[in-house]
C-alpha cells in the first residue's frame, strides 16, 4: 500500500521587505502541525520562489508581505507558476493586505489571504482542509 506523503509547504518572502516575524512564526506552526516546511528566507524574487517551489516539489506556497508590494509580487508568482505548468501548487498569502487588494488577489488565483490577528490554528486548519499532497 502506498503511504500517504505529508503535505509540503513553502513559506516565502518575496521582494525587499524584511518583516519576517510572521513568516517565521507560520513556518514553525506548520512544522509543529506535522507539515514538511521549506522556508526561503528573505528577499526572494518571484522567479526564485517559483523555481524553488518546483525543485522542492511543494504542494503550497505561502507568501508573506508587509510592505505594500504584494500587488505586484503575488500575481507575479501566480503567473509564473501558470507559465511553468504548476498551477496545481496552491498559493496563499499573508501580511498587511488591504481588503480591496484581497478581493483582487483572490480573483487572479490566490486561494486565501490571512491578515494580522488570525490565530495560528486557523491557518493550519485551512491548509489541512485545502491542500493535499500532489
Amino acid at each position, binding site marked *: 500500500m502506498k503511504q500517504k506523503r505529508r503535505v509540503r509547504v513553502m513559506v516565502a518572502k518575496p521582494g525587499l521587505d524584511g518583516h519576517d516575524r510572521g513568516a517565521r*512564526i507560520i513556518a514553525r506552526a506548520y512544522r509543529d502541525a506535522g507539515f514538511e516546511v521549506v522556508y526561503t*528566507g528573505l528577499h526572494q524574487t518571484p522567479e526564485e520562489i517559483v523555481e524553488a517551489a518546483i525543485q522542492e516539489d511543494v504542494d503550497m506556497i505561502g507568501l508573506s508581505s508587509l510592505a505594500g*508590494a504584494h500587488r505586484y509580487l503575488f500575481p507575479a508568482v501566480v503567473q509564473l507558476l501558470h507559465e511553468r505548468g504548476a498551477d496545481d501548487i496552491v498559493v496563499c498569502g499573508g501580511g*498587511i493586505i*488591504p481588503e480591496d487588494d484581497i478581493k483582487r488577489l483572490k480573483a487572479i488565483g490566490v486561494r486565501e489571504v490571512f491578515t494580522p*490577528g488570525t490565530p495560528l490554528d486557523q491557518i493550519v486548519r485551512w491548509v489541512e482542509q485545502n491542500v493535499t499532497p500532489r
Partner: protein
Amino acid sequence: MPLTFNDKIFDDIKKGREKWEKELEKVFAARPERLPRFSTVSDREIGQLYTPADIKAQDFMRDIGFPGEYPFTRGVQPSMYRGRLWTMRMFAGLGSASDTNKRFHLLVNQGQTGLSTAFDMPTLMGYDTDSPKARGECGKCGVAIDTIEDMEDLFEGLPIDKITTSMTINPPASVIWAMYIAMAEKRGIDRKAIGGTIQNDMLKEFIAQKTFMCPPVPSVRIITDTVEFGTKEVPRWNTISISGYHIREAGSTAVQELAFTLGDGIAYTEEAIKRGLDVDDFAPRFSFFFNSHLDFFEEIAKFRAARRMWGKIMKDRFKAKDPRSWWLRFHTQTAGCSLTAQQPYNNVVRTALQALAAVMGGTQSLHTNSLDEVLAIPTEEAATIALRTQQIIAEESGVANMIDPLGGSYFVEALTNRMEEEAFEIIEKIDNMGGMLSAIEKNYPQQEIADAAYRYQKQIDEKEKIVVGVNKYVTEEDIPVEIMEIDEELESLQIKKIHRVKNERDNRRVEACLERVGEACSGDTNVMEALIDAVKAHATLQEVCDVYRKVYGAYRDPGIY
C-alpha cells in the same frame, strides 16, 4: 549599606507582610486570584506587592541619584522636561520626494520639532527604482531616493541648518548621508552646521530588521568610517542610532531588547577604538533608539535600566572620562507590532499609553504611531492625531512637570534592578561567544528572538495574553478607516527621472568617482569623501551600492525560523 532604612524597619516590614499575606490567603480561599499567573508582556512574573524590602540593597546616591549625574537612572540632563520638552519627531515618508516634502511641511506647521525620514524598500536595500529587484515597491513604505536630485526635492524649503533630521536607513546609510551633506553644501551650508541622525546600525539588521547588503564584517567597517568622519567633519551628527526598536518588533522580550542593543553598542565602540579613535571623541555622538511596548512599568524600568547600564559600560568597561560619553540619549517609537488591524481606533489608546511610558522613562525624542499604521502608510489626519497625542501628554497631563516621577517606586526600582541584572547576564554570554559579531554568526540573538516571538504568539492564541479586539471583545466589522493609497504611476515617473539625470550628467566623471569609492573600500582610506564626490557627480544610490556589493559580496539570509 542602604541609607534609607534601618534593620528595625525591615523587621517591621517583614512582620507586616506576613500579617497581610495571611489576610490575603483568606480572601483568595473564598475567591481565587483573577489569573493563575500575573506576568508582563515579556512573560516576566510579577509579584503582588512591592515594599522597601524589595530594594533593600539599593543605595540611593549610587543607584538612583540625581538627573544629569552618573549613573543617570533618572535622566541624562539635569533639567529634563522642566527645561525643554522631548523632540516630537514623527517618522514620515511616502511616494516621491516631493510628496514627502509636503508631509514634512505639514508636520512642521503642526508644531513638530524635528524631521524623520522613512525610505522605501529599494532605497533601504540600495537599489534604484529602475532595478528589476525594485518592481512594485517604489514609494510604498517610504520615499524613493535615487540621486541627489531626490534629496534636494525632499528638503526643499526646509531650514536644514536649524532643524535636525533623522534618516532611518542602514546598509546604504553612508551614501544617503553623503547625499545629505552634499545637498547642504550645494545650498551653502557648512557640513559642521548640520545636525541629525542616520540609523546606520547594521548589527541589529542581521539580528532583527533584515535589511542587509554586505556581510557583517565589512558592514561594520563602513559604519566605523562614518563614525570617524562624523567625529572629525560633522560634529553635530549622530552617526549611529543603536537600535533596539526592531529587535523588539521582531518579537524579543524587553530584557533581550536591552541586552542586544547595548551589546551592539559595545561592538561599535570596540571597532572605533580599534580604528585608533579615543572613546571620548566619538561616544558622545552615539544615540539609541528603543521601542515603547505595551507593558507600562516594564518599559519605564527598561529605559531607566538602559541609562544606568550604558553609563557603567562606558565608564567601567571603556574607561570613558567625558560624562557626555556616559549618556545614553535615546529616541523612542511606540510599538508598531502592538497595533491591531481589528478595531483600529483602539490603536490611539495603545499608542497614548506607550508614549506615556516613554515620557516617564525620560526619552529625548518620540514618534507616536498612527492608528492606521498597521493597515497602510498613515493618512494626514491619522498622523496629526498621533502628534496631538504627544502634545496632550506634554502640555495637559502634567507628567512632564517633574523629573523621573516613578523614581523611588518600590516596584519600578526593583524591576529596574532586575532587568539590569538579567541584561548584563546576556551581555556576558555574548562576550563569552567572542562578542556580538560572532554571536550573530552563530545566530544566537536571531534564534532567541524567534523563540520569544513564537512563545508570545502561542500565548495570544491560548488567550493567556489578551489582545483587545483580536482574542477578546471581538466584533464583526468592516474597517472604518480611510486607507492611504500610493499612486501606481509613481514608479514609471521616478524611473523617467533617473534616466533624465543619467542623460544630463558627465558619465566619465561618475565612473572616475565610483572607481575612487571602490579603491577606498578595498583599501583602508575612509570612504566618505569619495562618496560625497560621487553623489555630487550624480552617481545613483545603486551605482554606489553596487560597488559595495562588488568589493564585499552580498549577504544572504540564513532563513532561521
